[in-house]
């Protein structure tokens, strides 16, 4: 079957080059599975995430460093929306796993998660893949909790 599609798609080009557009065959079907094939993997889904108190200060510090380099250009620590939503109270608005997956599995979230899709409609810029590992994302969560006043 594939071969036939292949031949059909080539035919119109050749005929056209000689006889003109009126001889074009029907537009060939495209193979969606081929078009949608993506080699890129943006990490794996995190299903559970345990929090502990008091906060792990090492993670808070690491999270802040990541924030400064990779997050701050779009997210403020206040409620102010810049490119993306401000981080104030994000840990009460969202479950930690949701946030982590938003950081490390953007493609999955935008494909499957209604809340994530709603955010895209609001912000119009995809949450970028900033090449953050799940361990690093965990530190970011700790920094967000710190930002929300947890001890």
């Amino acid at each position, binding site marked *: 079957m594939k071969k036939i599609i292949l031949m059909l798609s080539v035919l119109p080009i050749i005929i056209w080059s000689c006889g003109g557009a009126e001889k074009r065959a029907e537009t060939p079907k495209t193979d969606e599975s081929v078009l949608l094939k993506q080699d890129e993997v943006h990490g794996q889904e995190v299903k559970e995430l345990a929090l502990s108190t008091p906060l792990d200060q090492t993670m808070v510090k690491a999270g802040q460093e990541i924030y400064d*380099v990779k997050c701050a*250009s*779009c997210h403020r620590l206040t409620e102010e929306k810049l490119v993306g939503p401000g981080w104030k109270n994000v840990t009460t608005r969202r479950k930690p796993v949701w946030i982590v997956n938003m950081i490390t599995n953007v493609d999955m979230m935008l494909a499957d998660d209604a809340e994530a899709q709603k955010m895209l409609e609001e912000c119009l810029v995809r949450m970028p893949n900033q090449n953050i590992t799940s361990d690093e994302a965990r530190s970011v969560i700790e920094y967000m909790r710190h930002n929300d006043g947890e001890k």
Partner: protein
Amino acid sequence: MKNKIFTSLTLLGTSMFLLNSCKPAGQGSGGGSTLAGDAAQKVYVAPGTHDEFYDFVSGGFNGQMSVVGLPSGRVLRIIPVFTQHAESGWGYSEETKPMLNTSHGFVPWDDAHHTTLSVTNGEHDGRWAFINGNNTPRIARISLKSFRTEEIIELPNSGGNHSSPFVTFNSEYAVAGTRFSVPPDNFGDVPINTFKQNFKGYISFVSIDKTTGNLALKFQLTTPAISYDLARGGKGPSKDWIFFSSYNTEQANTLLEVNASQKDKDFILAVNWKKAEEYLAKGKGKKVPAKYAHNVYSDVTHSATSTIMTDVMTLDPKDCPDMLYFIPCPKSPHGCDVDPTGQYIIGSGKLAAVIPVFSFAKLQKAIADKKFDGSFEGIPVMDYNAVLHGEVQKPGLGPLHTEFDGKGNAYTSMFVSSEIVKWNIEKLTVLDRVPTYYSVGHLSIPGGPTTKPWGKYVIAYNKITKDRYLPTGPELTQSAQLYDITGEKMKLLLDFPTIGEPHYAEAIPASMIKDKTIKLYKIEENKHPYVAKGEKETKVTRNGKDVHVYMTSSRSHFAPDNIEGVKLGDDVYFHVTNLEQDWDVPHGFAVRGANNAEILVMPGETQTLKWKADRIGITPFYCTDFCSALHQEMQGYIRVSAPNSNVPLTWHTGKTAMKEADDKSQK
């Protein structure tokens, strides 16, 4: 099912017929038995799928290297090398300008002829590509991980770096034989007609570090004043040798078209480079003053450095017996190619009626038996018949270059008779010939110059295009053609246009490279002196008349995007760091009135555009690479005030404007 396929094949056949029937006769119809019946299927790469080979094609007079996918013939990228490339800022940005530095100062252009891929044990290893700068003699090294030019080394005592940058068996060296013999750079003011006495044919050996790929001009051979044309490293039994074709053994210095075509035979120079290393180790070399630039680009500082070197080691053949031998070769040989076994050296006399094939074993025996036919400036000339394996009779007109399929066959391009001729190396018999449209120069088989050809295709890089494509005025695209060589007969599959003028090219299986390519630069590893790792580090500083803007870009704003306090006549350096860490999210930067170009900044990278504040007022800048739905909003302003103004240096993004907008809407 089978029936259906058959029907479509028949249809295809019919359409081919139609195609042929409406082409004027004699205008290079690619039909008949030459064009494969299933050509379309063989070159079709379905949407979303990838080509089988990367083809690294020299850009000739554009000075760059193109990356083409085979069998589709699609251009995937142009890698800027020797020529400024405004679209990416190569040679315009402060970081890349040093790459084009030479002993002559900044040289913004060159003529790049030959791509060479690195080899280990004579086989492709997928690490680096090399290319020569012909006009201002240089060799460049391109990383096959980043597809960027990482190093350029200039060659002193040279003019026209043509027989370059062909490599030895384990990429120990890339060579550079001078096309123009010249007097030594530091003894250059001599009458041109003292050519024979004062000029030399310098051959440079540029070493390649096994781990880093770093280049160094190790030594130069001061050979007689003739013109070196092309070269190939030996393989297997001949791995310690490298062979150079030459012309103008008449040693003419004017009207070479006539004066360099007098002799029946010119030479192929056989160089035992291991011997040269031995002589160097014994202290036979002589260091002489020479000035040349060595430029290196760092992926860590995202900047290049240019160092001017001041001397070079030379080896005089007079002090080094048994190192060089001349092999007579009919009529101005152009190509000089070594077969995959390393046993045969094929010379292609442009004006010759035969293709001579020399035997490396016979060369060794003839050297041992001293079967010489005199000498040329002290270098032994071999007896032609003593080293000859045989001649291919009546191969065609104007043989130029030969490549190999690894099955005992050679493929030679014929410029004058405009065809590719396939012949058997052992038997010296012509097996097949196929026309090219028109006047093929170089030809290339994937892996063709290595010990392990990948075969499958031969690509003709043609010198003349004429009617092969829709006409575009006096200037036409350049043209290449892809042939299937899997069967006994070569079959034309595809014409594809190329960028610049393609000379030599090398193709390598995509699987050897594609998984090793890098996708971005890690922001954590960025050691650029003006990097801003995050908006927190953005700032503007003044040092006299120099203003440095530490700027970041992310989807979709710059920080800072409002800059004030710049004064007329200031030099403003926009150091733009792209904070993105995802594949294929570059940001661009352009500012009105810039006298250079724009810059494209890859994720995690820092690049700098210098801009002269040449008038008082407000100048806009913006992102040139469509980055998000709000790309159009990715813009900013810089304010330039009078030299005596007291506007303080300030910068920001967002805060003020947003706050005011909020306040207004609340009221």
